[in-house]
């Protein structure tokens, strides 16, 4: 009941005109960056982070929440109308959505995506309200060794579960951890990897890393691949659905939500896996199997609901434990830290009003997104006609300004360029970006918790294995690491023999 009261208070706060305006700005920007392939909510939040230094933290987070949810909505528009997913989480939507659009049913595909996102987003946010306090109660009992174990799990999960190649994931994580090491060691006071440059003693600011890798890296990558055959946008009127479409959509929406939320809440869920699962399920359960592959509405409704529900789920570990499970959450975590707010179980006690306003703004943002996206989808598609040199010139401008604004030192601009080239090289060699960002943000915190456990045990390694939670977590890590080897050496030969 207490939580409900808090939530109501949150609603009361978020309905202030200034906050509503910021929520609106957030969802508009979010949808726009979601529509544009290559520019995601993570990059946008990183770019806007320095801009929000002058605001109240609450207001900044209302805007970030809008961007986060908006990105999930916008991605579907590009997937359906252009067959180019705006976000990795809408890859699956493109499979059936674009086929529907080509068959003249673009309006219905956009409608089921938008309404499904709204339904899933609302249910997901409700679940967030219910689940997060439970997770917080659990998280309060965790000690330093448990946190260390959870963060290790997070590292292992983002590198080995997501992406195609474990080696590439590990390389990226290593780069991230290395960048996170730069600066003065908090325990011994030694300088690490500072190369004798005094400005580096404070470490490299996360904003500079995120902006360099996401924004500058992407801009260089696009500049290297600028000329390409323009694609055709399928013309569409105002999205709408007939009675039959509603009948075929509501079950996939709910099932998609059921897949999305828990996966988002897991330390390495992300939005990609649940969308694939939802697609596979709808394909199996559908009463119109002949339509799959030719534009089945279930194949749009399910995955779109799943990716929005997972966005809500992502916020559970981020707010309750301080563990980010996708790139946007990682950057938002960095934003919390830059305001001097430590995410984790104590957040709900110390910054209760901030958390509940944030959650209330998610409900508001969701509603705004439905109102914005349903009638305006064709207008959003027009954004794709912007010549990319103009777009990326603007992004580079914001990136440099933001990187400089953090500490007002020219060295940061140099670092930005170096990190941008690193981001370009990572795209060139197919290294995933997420492990690097998670490494930079979680690395120092994992080190802190790890060393705290060791200090408590007087340097005994057994101090790292604290209690039942860390046993369970280490077992999971072992399973995640061993399972592919088992499959490679035990399961596959068996299958080959039987085949």
């Amino acid at each position, binding site marked *: 009941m207490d939580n409900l009261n808090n939530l109501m208070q949150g609603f009361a706060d978020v309905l202030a005109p200034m906050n509503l305006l910021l929520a609106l700005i957030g969802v508009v920007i979010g949808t726009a960056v979601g529509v544009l392939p290559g520019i995601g909510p993570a990059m946008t939040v990183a770019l806007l982070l320095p801009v929000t230094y002058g605001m109240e933290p609450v207001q900044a987070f209302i805007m970030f929440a809008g961007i986060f949810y908006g990105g999930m909505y916008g991605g579907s528009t590009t997937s359906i109308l252009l067959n180019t997913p705006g976000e990795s989480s809408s890859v699956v939507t493109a499979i059936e959505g674009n086929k529907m659009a080509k068959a003249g049913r673009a309006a219905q595909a956009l409608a089921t995506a938008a309404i499904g996102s709204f339904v899933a987003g609302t249910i997901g946010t409700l679940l967030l309200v219910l689940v997060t306090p439970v997770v917080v109660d659990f998280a309060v009992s965790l000690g330093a060794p448990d946190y260390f174990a959870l963060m290790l799990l997070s590292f292992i999960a983002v590198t080995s579960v997501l992406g195609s190649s474990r080696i590439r994931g590990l390389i990226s994580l290593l780069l991230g951890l290395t960048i996170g090491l730069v600066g003065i060691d908090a325990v011994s006071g030694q300088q690490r990897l500072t190369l004798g440059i005094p400005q580096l003693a404070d470490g490299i600011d996360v904003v500079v890393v995120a902006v360099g890798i996401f924004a500058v890296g992407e801009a260089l990558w696009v500049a290297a691949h*600028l*000329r*390409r*055959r*323009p694609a055709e946008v399928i013309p569409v009127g105002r999205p709408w659905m007939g009675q039959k479409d509603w009948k075929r959509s509501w079950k996939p929406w709910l099932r998609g939500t059921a897949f999305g939320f828990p996966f988002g809440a897991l330390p390495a869920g992300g939005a990609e896996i649940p969308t694939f699962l939802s697609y596979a399920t709808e394909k199996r359960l559908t009463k119109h199997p002949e339509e799959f592959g030719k534009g089945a509405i279930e194949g749009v409704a399910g995955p779109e609901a799943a990716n929005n529900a997972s966005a809500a789920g992502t916020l559970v570990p981020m707010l309750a434990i301080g563990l980010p499970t996708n790139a946007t959450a990682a950057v938002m975590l960095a934003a919390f830290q830059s305001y001097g707010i430590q995410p984790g179980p104590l957040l709900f006690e110390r910054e209760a009003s901030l958390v509940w306003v944030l959650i209330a703004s998610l409900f508001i943002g969701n509603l705004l997104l439905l109102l914005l996206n349903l009638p305006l989808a064709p207008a959003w598609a027009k954004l794709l*006609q912007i*010549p990319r040199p103009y777009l990326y010139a603007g992004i580079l401008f914001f990136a440099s300004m933001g990187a400089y604004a953090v500490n007002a030192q020219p060295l940061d601009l140099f670092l930005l360029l170096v990190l941008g080239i690193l981001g370009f090289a990572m795209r060139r060699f197919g290294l995933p970006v997420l492990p690097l960002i998670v490494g930079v943000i979680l690395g120092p915190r994992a080190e802190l918790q790890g060393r705290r456990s060791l200090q408590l045990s007087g340097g005994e390694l057994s101090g790292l294995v604290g209690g039942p939670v860390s046993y369970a977590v280490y077992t999971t890590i072992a399973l995640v690491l061993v399972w592919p080897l088992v499959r490679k050496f035990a399961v596959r030969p068996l299958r080959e023999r039987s085949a």
Partner: protein
Amino acid sequence: MTVLVGYVPSPEGEAALRAGIDEARLRDEKLLVVNTSRGDALVDPRFAQEPDLAHVREDLAALGVEFDLRQVLGGGDAAEEIIELAEQADVSLVVIGLRRRSAVGKLIMGSAAQQILLGAGCPVLAVKAAGQE
């Protein structure tokens, strides 16, 4: 000698194509149909997609005009490409379509038609879409 048509998949572009066909027949010359895009936006409505091109080819083949259809991708803007081609390909006449533009639009974005009219080394025929005053 050749008649060059700057083609875009729009009523203006179609009008230019019709006028170009008439001129090519009248002069008994070949027809060169050009469509360009800088290719730096993800979507360019002035870039002819395959169905449009197929329809142009069909029409031209049915009319029995000797023609060449070219798409230029990733070069300069449309006006630069057409002026350059007109110099290279021994062109006697350039045919382009005009559309109504606002003064502000022209001020900000410039006008490809104006650039071609002023910059081309040969006569330019500018036509409007049917029903447009």
